[in-house]
């Protein structure tokens, strides 16, 4: 009997967690947003990261006040509006870090989803604005054409927009 009681107890204890489980609609979005191509510049640190191992950016690059580097080392000191140097130096229009309010590191899927929708954190973007941003913004699109031998997010961009649209049409559920 004891194992059965234990199982029931566990199931009971797990209920609150199940209620807080992330939305199935958001899970594939979470997996894209936490890919290094996205997350390396959505950091919560005073510096960007690079590579799939997400090491601190070489050259001791700093975030700076406007998220585009410090005066003597702006992101644009190396990064152009397209990939250059045979793909060694990635680039896209308005290359820079996301503001700290849009830091996604170490957030659970539910937290990331809530922050993504929070207009006080996300640059006052509605769900439709978010969809538009991720559909058309050149810096977002760079994530799928990163140059060199960089990996790309787990879904291709049309698939990503498809799951994002489904999530937006469902009202942006996080749980």
């Amino acid at each position, binding site marked *: 009997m004891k194992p059965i009681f234990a199982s029931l107890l566990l199931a009971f204890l797990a209920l609150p967690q199940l209620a807080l489980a992330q939305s199935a609609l958001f899970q594939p979005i979470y997996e894209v947003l936490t890919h290094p191509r996205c997350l390396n510049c959505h950091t919560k640190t005073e510096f960007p990261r690079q590579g799939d191992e997400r090491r601190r950016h070489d*050259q001791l690059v700093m975030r700076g006040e406007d998220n585009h580097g410090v*005066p*003597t080392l702006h992101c644009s*000191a*190396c990064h152009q509006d397209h990939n*250059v140097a045979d793909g060694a130096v990635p680039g896209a229009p308005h290359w820079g870090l996301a503001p700290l309010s849009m830091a996604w590191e170490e957030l659970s899927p539910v937290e990331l989803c809530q922050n993504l929708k929070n207009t006080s954190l996300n640059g006052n973007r509605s769900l439709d604005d978010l969809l538009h941003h991720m559909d058309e913004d050149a810096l977002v699109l760079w994530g799928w054409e990163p140059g060199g031998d960089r990996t790309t997010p787990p879904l291709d961009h049309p698939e990503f927009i498809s799951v994002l649209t489904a999530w937006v049409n469902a009202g942006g559920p996080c749980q």
Partner: protein
Amino acid sequence: MYTLQVNGISHTVDVPGDKPLLWVLRENLKLTGSKYGCGQALCGACTVHLDGHPVRACVTPISAVGEQAVRTIEDIAYDAVGAKVQETWQNLNVPQCGYCQSGQIMAATALLTDNPTPTDRDIDEAMSGNICRCGTYPRIRRAIHKLANGGV
């Protein structure tokens, strides 16, 4: 063909668009003050200014320069801040081998133009991308502080 403004003079060069600005400066225009260090934007020896902002010329394709004014170490003495940086560099004997110093002076000039009274933290953040294999960092920092205290 690309036409670019370098140190106030217009030059037209017949080079492929992906040729790095550094090699246009050094090979085509014979301005060899900007140095080739690592070739990967890691060391800062190739630092020049585009419209006053420091860039790594070794990874900047000539096609990305456009209308922006290029300024190199050869011309920095004609900049009010740059002239004082060079003078202080000489007075404090900042360089050792000197290879990185062109980039260091371009970075320091940009820093002091943007922020005439930088703190140690400002200096560290601003100069961290310029590497010196002789380890002249204490003298670089001292020179920048001297310039800040003396007013730039």
